Each structure stands twice: as C-alpha cells, then as structure tokens.
C-alpha cells in the first residue's frame, strides 16, 4: 500500500485504440479518500481513463498502453486484473443490475465474491448497509426478492451503487452516473457520493461542470486526450488558468 497518499497515479500515459491516440500523455495523481472529478466534453477520453484504472480496457481488442499506472501502490498494468478489480468498484453510465438476480442477490453477490460477508447474517447486514448508504433501503426494504426490472431507472442506478459499495472497495469509479437519470434521483445519487468522502477514494467522470462543483474536491479537465487544467475545485472555478477552462465552465464547449 502506497505511503505517499495517492490512491491512483497515472504517469505520462498514452493509450492507442485501433491505431488512433485516445489519451496523449496524461499525468494524474488522485489523493486518497477524496472525490476526484474528471470532466470534459464527450469523446475527450474520460471513460478510457476509468477503464484503465479498473483494467476493463482489456475488453477492447487492439489497445496499446504506454506509461505507468499505479493503483493503491500496485502496478496496474502488470498486476492480475482480477486481483486489481477486487479493490476497485465501478458504476456505469447506463444502470446494469443483473436482470436474472433479485435486488437482494444483486447486492449480496458483490459482498460474497469479495469475501466481505460469508454467512446469511453477515450478508443480510451488509445488504441492508449498502442499500441504506445508497439511499435505496426505504424504497425496497419490503421487496428485496423482486427483480430489478420493477425498479425505475434512478432506483436501478442506486442499486448499482449499493452493489458497488457492498464490495467494500477502496476506490469507486463512476462513469457519468447520473447521465441517464432524472434530476430528483440524480440529486440523491450526488448526496450518496458526497457522503463517501473520507471513506473511499471516488473518481467520477462527468460532462457537467455544475455537478463537478457540487460534488468534487479535485477536478481534472480533459480535452482531446490531454489534461487542460487540474487542481482543487475552488481554484479551477475561481481562478481558471486556461482559456478552454473558461469556455467549458460557461458551457460554450
């Protein structure tokens, strides 16, 4: 485990997918237990960065990565991806709870396979804990055996959050988690994310500067595979250094 205090470190990382450069020389240092927001217009490479951290980039054929990536002190590119992923939870842009498992099982399986809970009592407890943290417990406590298709989109996304939390991950990756969610649910999800500060390192991708301001501690603004600006939320918003940042914050990009 890293003593300097960075949960994730990317050093001069280049990523090429199908021969075209998607990430060009990015260096990011994510401090432990903070909420780090990666922001930028669509197609700038934000999701690719998340995929690097969780080694989901393996699923894309024809990818080349250069540079060094360190996750919780482990060399992300050389480690066994299955081991790495145990520490990293992820919530995707479109909610994807397993359709063939009940609400309870969706959360429970995350706890079970990561050894967080081993018997029925422990599982019950952690499912309840995760659903409460995701602010979903009250809405589903009477119907834990129902299937996810009976939930609304916003509820499904919170279920995915609960599922990720039940893993007790050290790092939580969120890929535009409220992009396809209604505003009420989106606010709830933002509340949940904020409550995780100091417990888990959260890395969130968004294209909304407002959301970044509401939720984040640190921001990195990405455009076309490179970092335009990076720093604490206050600094970026009050003292943007780059012309592009100003434009982006005003919504002109």
């Amino acid at each position, binding site marked *: 485990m890293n003593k300097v205090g960075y949960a994730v470190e990317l050093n001069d990382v280049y990523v090429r997918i199908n021969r075209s450069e998607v990430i060009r020389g990015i260096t990011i240092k994510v401090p432990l237990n903070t909420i780090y927001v990666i922001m930028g217009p669509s197609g700038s490479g934000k999701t690719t960065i998340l995929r690097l951290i*969780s080694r*989901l980039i393996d*699923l894309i*054929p024809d990818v080349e990565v250069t540079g060094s990536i360190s996750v919780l002190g482990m060399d992300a590119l050389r480690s066994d*991806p*299955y081991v790495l*992923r*145990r520490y*990293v*939870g*992820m919530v*995707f842009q*479109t909610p*994807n*709870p*397993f*359709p*063939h498992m009940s609400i309870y099982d969706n959360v429970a*399986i*995350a706890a079970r*396979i*990561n050894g967080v809970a081993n018997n029925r009592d422990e599982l019950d407890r952690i499912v309840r804990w995760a659903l409460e943290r995701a602010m979903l417990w009250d809405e589903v406590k009477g119907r834990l055996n129902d299937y996810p298709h009976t939930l609304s989109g916003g509820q499904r996304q919170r279920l*995915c959050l609960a*599922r*990720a939390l039940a*893993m007790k991950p050290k790092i939580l*990756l969120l890929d535009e988690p409220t992009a396809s969610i209604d505003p009420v649910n989106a606010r709830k999800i933002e509340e949940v994310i904020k409550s995780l500060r100091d417990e888990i390192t959260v890395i969130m991708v968004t294209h909304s500067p407002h959301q970044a301001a509401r939720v984040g501690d640190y921001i990195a603004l990405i455009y076309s595979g490179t970092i335009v600006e990076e720093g604490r939320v206050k600094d970026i918003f009050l003292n943007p250094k780059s012309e592009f940042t100003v434009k982006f914050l005003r919504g002109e990009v």
Partner: protein
Amino acid sequence: MHRIRVIKDRLFTFYVVITSALALIPSLHLISVIILRGVEVLSEAGIKFLVDLPPTPLSTQVGGIAPSLLGTFMLTAIALPTTTLIAIFAAVMNNEFPNNPISRILDVTLRSFASIPTIVVSMTVYLLVVIPMGGYSAIASSIALAIIALPYAYTIISAALGQVPHTYREAAYALGMSRWMMIYKVIIPIARRMLAGGILITMARIMGETAALIFTAGRFRTGLTLSPNQPVDAIPLLIFDYALTPYPVMHKVAWGAALILLLIYLITFLSLKVLVKEVKL
C-alpha cells in the same frame, strides 16, 4: 408502356404464388398423410402400439414399436447431454478467447462437421467403436448421434452466449468476478432461454436421425433392453427399414411409428416456440 409493367407484375405475382404453393403442398400433404394413416394404425392397435413388439412380416396384428420407442429415448438420454456439454465448452472457448488461433480452428472444424454426410459418420463410428466392442450397441449409436448433432448445438449455443449484452460482462468484471464465475453466474443464466431452445433443437435432431444408426445400432427389435453395450433400435431406423419392405403390415407399423415421431417432434417444437421467440438455425 405502363400497362405492360402492370401485366408483368400480375404475371409475376401469379407465378410466385403458384410456385410457393408447390413448395408447401407436398410437405403439407406429407404431414396430413402421416396423421391420417398413423391414426388409422393407432386406432387399430390402440395403446398397445407403445408397448408391444413389432409383428412378423406375415402376421395380421400390427403389434407395436416398444423396443424402438425405448431405444430412441435411451439414445437421446445418452447423446444429448454429451453433445450439449461439448458444445457448451466449445462455445465458451469461442466466445471468451475469440482471437486465439486454437479457438478459430475449433470454430472452423465444428462448422465443417455440419457438412459431413451422416452415413460417413456412421461408417467411422462403426470402425472406431462397433468393431472394437465386437458388436452394435447403444453406446456406438449415441456417439454417432452426438457427433452429428454437435455442430447444431454449437452454433446455437454460441449465438445464445454471444447475444448477452456486453454491459453485464463489464458489471461482472467490475465486481471482481473471475471469468469462469462470470460465465457461470451471469452469462449462462441470462442466456438460459435461448440455451434451452438450443438444447431442444438438438434433441429434435438426435431423435430424427436415421443414417447415423444404420451401422451402429443393430436393429434389436425382438425385446426391450436398457443395456448400453447391446444392440438397440430407434424409431427412425424402424421406419426406414419397414418402409423398404414389401409387407403391408410392416408399412402399417411404419406409418404408426411415423405419427409417433411426428408427435414427439411437434411437442419439442412447440416447447421451443414457447421458450424462444425466434431461433435461427
């Protein structure tokens, strides 16, 4: 000018409808004939058709097809799980490691299997199994049937596994699941309907196959047996043999058996349709 085009269009429609009817009518006639002749035979023989032994060529009683019926079920019970298991492993390999050269060779091989004439499979299994075992057997027949059904099972199981949305794979990996766990706990359960459909199609194929049994089954029709290393019989083989004899009573048995086979196939097909909206062969 315009009138000529309309006339051509009308002629075309006429031609196409007539030829389509020609395409369908023989098969529809076939099915009706089986039902008519088969019902005739079954009403003559009654329920005993399912439990009696076949008649001798000159007898007046129709008897029954019990040995063949039992044989068909026994052979299916052995061949279906075998071929399904191999097909699942092969399909998993093809879906999970698609870029690996071994996977590609496996894929091409299995697709080639579909083009092997079934009688050739029969001959091969005869050499590989019947001769070393010293005689015809249910095992030899099941092996031949499993080989023939394998490409069908593989194609459809591969398709079933492949159409599980990619996002569930990612979710599974993100939770820390190993590949095997993902396949076992996520992919297969999500694909279960189409998988069940595939198994049903394979079963229908196995139950209807004749040529594979010609040199492997032994045509044991004079008694009932469940022994795997003894000669056995099956309904399609019985129909084939009896259709080619000159004796009317054998023909009757063949029609009755054909109706039974048709009914079994119909039930399988309807179950398939209940499970899956559309299954591509």
